[in-house]
């Protein structure tokens, strides 16, 4: 069995979860703190955080009596690198196609 990115992509297919990731990209935060910054209830934030945690995009960190969430970057950066590499391959192929078509 090979791991695939399906669960990560599924988790990312939601505007609110992107907002949460952007906020957490600035600084670690608790569900309550996120609810104060985003137009979403604390309960909804908690559900979204659970989805993100499930696929390994965030992890809880206990700070005193508070549980804050922190983003885990490896999966996302892997996605970005993969797409970047695919794009670079197409740049090369398109340049070759251009050369061929223009010389026909």
């Amino acid at each position, binding site marked *: 069995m*090979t*791991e*695939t*990115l*399906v669960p*990560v*992509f*599924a988790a*990312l*297919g939601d505007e609110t979860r*992107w907002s949460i*990731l*952007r906020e957490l*990209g*600035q600084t670690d935060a608790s569900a309550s703190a996120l609810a104060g910054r985003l137009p979403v209830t604390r309960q909804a934030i908690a559900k979204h955080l659970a989805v993100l945690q499930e696929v390994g995009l965030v992890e809880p960190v206990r700070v005193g009596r508070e549980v804050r969430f922190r*983003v*885990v*970057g*490896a*999966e*996302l*950066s*892997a*996605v*970005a*690198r*993969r*797409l*970047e590499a*695919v*794009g670079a391959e*197409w*740049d090369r*192929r*398109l*340049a*070759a*196609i*251009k050369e*061929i*078509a*223009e010389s*026909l």
Partner: protein
Amino acid sequence: MSMTINPGAVVDESGFSVTRSIRIAAPVENVWAAVTEPEHVSRWFGRLELDGREATASGSLSWPDGTRIPIRIEAIDPLRSVSYRWGNDDALADAPAELDESSSTVFTFTLTAVDGGTELTVLETGFEATSDPVYNLESHRTGWNEELDKLVALVESEA
């Protein structure tokens, strides 16, 4: 390693895709030949062998090093667009002999006549299903903020 922003990567409901466009100073007919005729495809991609020229025609792409990848025409609209499905899963050590719907991607060329030539756009979709060695192997976490910024810029650049 520095990471450049991929201007063509987009996120949508079905997953991630990569798209690129290029202007070619040649008529649509020539560009069409370059992206569909096996003798030309072999020059920019790999040796293309197909059992037909219509949708569902299947065959393989192969390279001198012995790599062979299954490929199929998904749709074809002469001089306008052509879609190929291929087993583009770099993470697998050995390419599968048969096309696996769940782990292959589809790339579509769209040709548009423009002043002075042709605009050729390629869109490749389906990456959410392919395996990824980096994803599998990377367990360390570093430089998160920078990476998130880059990814957000990347997915929003064409949103």
